[in-house]
């Protein structure tokens, strides 16, 4: 288990191979279209969806605006309820804290609830280096872990795999991790789920340490909330003696009552259900019920940098529902791996460059991984204007682009274009020149021609448009000269 997103190529390069992978395309198209249609139906059931969405947005904005206050309140509440709170400024510190907490229990195995935060900080890899095996227990995470693969979706990390690929992974790898797959395993989803149940049951029953994230944390009461479907979360949250929850600081909500908004928004947006099968809430520790030691690790890891950006901070409203992935035409064709982080799709394209910065080629390419079609904004349950943030981050890339050749040249072109557009007479002359040369431009340019990058990229798959003899501007001028009305 050593695969990470480190060293991935920029988005366009990674996406190129995905677009040519027929199986991957078919898997993704089937899965995203299925879930997006279901979501639309689940949302249509509530005639006050727009108001819920607005309230969700406003509650998150209010919380972010007073984040320091609510985190301190949360810390006090959790502590009063018997939990212990740790603060981690970055991924390395969070991993160090968790590793030490696990070591203190004397255990070398932990069971994990699916958690985006622990994927982001690459906790499993850090634990492995310390000799601790972390077992993912969500079915899709299990598929990814057994397949030595990377997650490609927030909700359904193995969305890129179809049933027969999953069967093969289970047959090949389960035996190396514990109970092998049953003989004669078919690719029926129910049988695959049964195989996972049997494989994981022994791990749940012997686990002494559980690791989770949280969907929400309630400042007023110190309550943590996890939404899930399979019951693996309940297993990890209640059976072990020690529970360690690793949670991003933006996950806090002020009050218990605020859940009434998010428990309506999240299930319908993510799994397209009225309610997910299981939601667990816990407040510190309870005598005789569930873990008797509870640690909360609050993670910054770039979130405060994101908060400092007045346009980009809205990304911190995200409740990780993945509705934006399921409607995104770019995600559907590029696949999740191309985004090079735990957060794929439109939300990843605005979150990753803010959490990690735009210094690497990959991170600088993410804000451009969108046609700005706006489908993501439309379905976002907390109204994150993803296209707005994408364009805003492109500015950060373009402005910081002096040392990147591509953006230096591009910037010069953009400025020259503006000059031209600010001089209509010059523009008219260019148009006339193009019109005069139109006969020389074929639909498809010769392969040998030393074309500038953009023209070649365009012409590789599309014919160039035919240029008109005369621009509108010239036609209009002549018409005016003739006297209007012709």
């Amino acid at each position: 288990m050593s695969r990470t997103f480190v060293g991935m190529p920029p988005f366009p390069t990674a996406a190129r191979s995905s677009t040519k992978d027929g199986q991957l395309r078919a898997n993704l198209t089937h899965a995203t279209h299925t879930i997006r249609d279901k979501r639309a139906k689940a949302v249509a059931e509530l005639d006050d969806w727009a108001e819920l969405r607005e309230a969700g947005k406003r509650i998150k904005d209010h919380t972010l605006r007073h984040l320091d206050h609510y985190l301190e309140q949360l810390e006090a509440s959790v502590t009063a309820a018997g939990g212990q709170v740790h603060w981690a400024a970055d991924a390395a510190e969070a991993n160090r804290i968790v590793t030490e907490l696990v070591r203190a229990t004397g255990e070398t195995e932990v069971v994990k609830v699916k958690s985006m935060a622990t994927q982001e900080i690459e906790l499993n890899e850090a634990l492995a280096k310390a000799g601790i095996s972390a077992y993912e227990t969500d079915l899709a995470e299990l598929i990814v872990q057994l397949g030595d693969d990377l997650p490609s979706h927030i909700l359904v990390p193995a969305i890129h795999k179809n049933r027969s690929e999953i069967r093969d992974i289970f047959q090949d790898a389960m035996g190396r991790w514990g109970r092998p797959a049953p003989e004669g395993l078919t690719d029926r989803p129910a049988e695959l789920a049964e195989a996972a149940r049997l494989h994981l049951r022994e791990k749940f029953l012997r686990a002494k340490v559980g690791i989770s994230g949280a969907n929400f944390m309630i400042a007023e009461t110190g309550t943590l909330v996890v939404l899930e479907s399979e019951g693996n979360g309940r297993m990890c949250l209640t059976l072990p003696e020690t529970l360690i929850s690793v949670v991003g600081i933006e996950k806090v909500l002020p009050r218990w009552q605020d859940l009434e908004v998010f428990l309506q928004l999240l299930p319908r947006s993510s799994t397209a259900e009225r309610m997910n099968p299981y939601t667990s809430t816990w407040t510190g520790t309870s005598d005789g019920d569930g873990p008797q030691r509870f640690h909360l690790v609050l993670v910054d890891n770039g979130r405060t940098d994101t908060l400092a950006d007045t346009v980009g901070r809205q990304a911190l409203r995200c409740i990780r529902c993945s509705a934006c992935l399921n409607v995104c035409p770019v995600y559907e064709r590029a696949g999740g791996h191309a985004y090079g982080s735990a957060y794929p799709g439109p939300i990843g394209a605005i979150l990753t460059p803010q959490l990690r910065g735009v210094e690497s080629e990959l991170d600088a390419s993410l804000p451009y991984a969108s046609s700005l079609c706006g489908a993501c904004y439309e379905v976002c349950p907390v109204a994150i204007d993803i296209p707005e943030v994408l364009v805003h981050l492109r500015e950060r890339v373009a402005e910081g682009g002096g040392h990147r050749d591509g953006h230096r040249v591009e910037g010069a072109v953009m400025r020259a274009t503006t000059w031209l557009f600010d001089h209509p007479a010059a523009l008219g002359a260019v148009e006339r020149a193009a019109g005069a040369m139109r006969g020389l431009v074929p639909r498809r340019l010769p392969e040998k021609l030393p074309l500038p990058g953009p023209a070649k990229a365009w012409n590789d798959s599309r014919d160039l448009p035919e240029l008109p003899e005369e621009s509108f501007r010239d036609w209009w001028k002549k018409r005016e000269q003739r006297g209007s009305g012709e």
Partner: protein
Amino acid sequence: MSSREQVLARIRTALADVPRESEAAPDPAAVPRGYRTTHTGEDPAAIRELLAENLADYRAIVHRVGDESEVAGAVGRLLAERGSKTVAVPDGLPADWLAEVAAGTERLAEGPELTARRLDSVDSVVTGCAVAIAETGTIVLDAAEGQGRRRLTLVPDHHICVIRPGQIVASVPQALPRLDPRRPQTWISGPSATSDIELDRVEGVHGPRTLEVVLIDD
């Protein structure tokens, strides 16, 4: 500077552009909430029907009984039909509910000896609940009397849950004020399920694969 101080300081710096009331504590109640507190009418019978419908829609098996005196018969019959040899019994479960359980069925009272490993070989568990939500088809357990510690309703593969009329609310906003966040809660909407394989919903992974609900009408 500790990481705690460092993170809090970064937050305050990040929010330098935002006008903030430095003295008064922020008021989360001031956030406007234009949504409904219910999408269903006030009629208890209609709310109960909606609950039954939504529970069934997510594959819980719903059994209607006229009043509480009929619970024992229903529970006895369901355990017999399942062929359950062992049933876990939470503290404080009304004794009447188990009055018609077959004599050969072993009852296991809650206690430290009823470990997860022991529960793994228990056939069924019978509980009440704290609240049931009609619009979402959700049962909420809060580990109070008659519901048991969380593992009790998690490890056995068959869960029978009895809902009294007074425990039913229409909506999520109506449910939360009735629940004490200090108690550990499990919200259950149908049996365990996954959609991780090609987004096809499959019932039954780790939690109880069969959820039977005994709904008392009156």
